[in-house]
């Protein structure tokens, strides 16, 4: 009986020894899978880097950091099959961009999964909570350092975009209530406005210096009517060089602007707080920004390096003169939004400044979609016992055999 036990111990010691030798000398492709658990990703990455494995299953309960994602991607690139699984992570993403306006606000755009409640924060603390089932955006007057969007194990971070410096705006029009109140609205919003307002043939009133129309001086040009016709060539060159243009009311009908106009003001008019013409003859690449029912009223397109908006509205001043407390502010906001949408502002490439704007998307891009294999699993699993266990088994078996043989008086 004792002899059989000693043989068993010897066999166990030899098996452990063989496994230890096999662990050292076996080829990587034949090594078994390693699954790692929550919190152990760092260890798994170190182990998988030191001793290449055939496959690595990562079970996560939060999105790995950018460093760990890059590390996993590198391991995969070295020949290890990497998969990941875990609890449902909210695919939240956040981006910031400067608004081209004098106030210098920052637009924070957030996207998330279904009914995801996303907490927006900056370096100083929480800012707001948004439902990000559909992409939404917030305009922030200030944000410090970075902006993060957090939801269900996912935290997207992006640096705050630097506010942009807008340049002057040029208004070309006949003297009239529309031109007067467009200039007033933009000036109240903080824009520096130059104006050339035609009063009579060869006579115009000028506001601001007589600069040439170029992107070094102007963020946008606004043409309100046929008074802009003599400047049509300059407007087209300016837009194609990167400038922005708003062609309001009948200005989009000018023959000299036909190549850049997204659409042409038709004959049919619509009523409302802002009255104007329905747009027609939309170019193929034009995007309709505002409709009344099915009738397009504002459309935009790119032309060269710049952007152009055609607005059918030619009497927005009437919306400002409505006797409601918020009417002037709404008129101001509307015109600022229109000009901001096309304004030329030189910006630096925000991608160079880092951040982790869409971590789940980045994880999927680096490692592929989530695997079902390990979903919901927890704890470390290995198909080959770890080295310390093999070594312990070897020592215990040998020691047991030696002790047994001594008791028998053989050793």
């Amino acid at each position, binding site marked *: 009986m004792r002899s059989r036990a000693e043989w068993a111990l010897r066999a166990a010691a030899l098996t452990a020894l063989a496994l230890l030798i096999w662990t050292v000398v076996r080829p990587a492709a034949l090594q078994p899978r390693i699954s790692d658990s929550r919190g152990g990703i760092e260890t798994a990455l170190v182990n998988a880097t030191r001793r290449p494995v055939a496959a690595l299953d990562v079970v996560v309960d939060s999105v790995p950091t950018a460093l760990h994602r890059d590390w996993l991607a590198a391991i995969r690139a070295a020949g290890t099959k990497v998969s990941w699984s875990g609890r449902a992570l909210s695919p939240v993403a956040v981006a910031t961009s400067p608004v081209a306006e004098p106030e210098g606000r920052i637009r924070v755009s957030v996207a998330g999964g279904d009914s995801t409640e996303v907490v927006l924060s900056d370096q100083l603390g929480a800012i707001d909570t948004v439902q990000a089932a559909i992409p939404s955006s917030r305009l922030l007057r200030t944000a410090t350092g970075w902006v993060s969007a957090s939801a269900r194990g996912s935290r997207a971070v992006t640096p705050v975009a630097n506010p942009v410096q807008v340049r002057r705006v040029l208004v070309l029009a006949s003297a009239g209530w529309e031109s007067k109140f467009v200039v007033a609205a933009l000036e109240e919003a903080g824009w520096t406005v130059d104006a050339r307002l*035609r009063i009579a043939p060869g006579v115009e009133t000028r506001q601001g210096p007589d600069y040439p129309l170029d992107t070094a001086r102007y963020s946008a040009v606004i043409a309100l009517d046929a008074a802009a016709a003599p400047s049509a060539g300059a407007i087209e060159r300016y837009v194609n060089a990167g400038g922005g243009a708003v062609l309001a009311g009948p200005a989009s009908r000018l023959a000299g602007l036909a190549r850049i106009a997204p659409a042409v003001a038709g004959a049919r008019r619509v009523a409302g707080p802002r009255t104007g013409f329905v747009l027609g003859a939309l170019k193929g690449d034009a995007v309709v920004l505002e409709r009344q029912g099915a009738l397009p009223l504002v459309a935009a397109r790119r032309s060269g390096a710049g952007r152009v908006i055609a607005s059918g509205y030619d009497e927005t001043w009437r919306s400002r*003169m409505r006797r409601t407390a918020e009417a002037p502010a709404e008129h101001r906001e509307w015109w600022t939004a229109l000009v901001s949408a096309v304004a030329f502002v030189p910006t630096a490439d925000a991608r160079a400044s880092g951040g982790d704007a869409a971590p789940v998307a980045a994880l999927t891009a680096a490692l592929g979609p989530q695997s079902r294999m390990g979903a919901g699993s927890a704890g470390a699993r290995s198909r080959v016992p770890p080295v310390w266990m093999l070594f312990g088994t070897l020592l215990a078996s040998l020691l047991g055999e030696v002790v047994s043989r001594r008791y028998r008086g053989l050793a």
Partner: protein
Amino acid sequence: MVSEFVFCTGQYASGDWESAPLVASNLIDSVARYTSLDVAATGVTVPLDSPRLFEHPLVYLTGHLPFRLSAAERANVKAYTDRGGMVFIDDHNHDVGGIFHKTATEEIARTWSPLSQLPNTHRLYSAFFEFDEGPPATSHELNGWGDNLIHPHLSAVVRDGRIVVLYSSKDYSSEWNYHPENKKFSSVDNTRFGVNIIVYALTS
């Protein structure tokens, strides 16, 4: 043309707001004659307490009798100027001792703020025609009628560099209150300053 300029005469509850009925047609004629602005062939009369006032961002007021605004008129015209409207008030008496001047200046101070003298270098005097010496004198001033004074300045309530209320003691209402056809008998059109007021309102 829907964006055309429509000359608007303000109707107030007190006094004789309709005392210079030909001023509107005369100034409309001048604007059409000298400029390329789209201008309606006829003017309109709008009560000062009417929401329709907000469709005409320049309103002309005149009269000989006491000028008092009702609470509704005052609130409406105040909101009107807050949104960018401009009020031009002319003393048809040409008399700084007269009842219109006294009551109108009091009402202006009550509704907006006290009038201040408008410098003769103001953009109003070069908005279209050049008036290097300020407001042109009227025949009533030169003939010694009314207060027997030639007023060298106009007065105004100015807000953020913009004239909100323009006040004249020069009696342009008498000066411009004739049929436009009769301009052919004048060597110099005396309504040219009226064009400046309208162009200023449209461009400032």
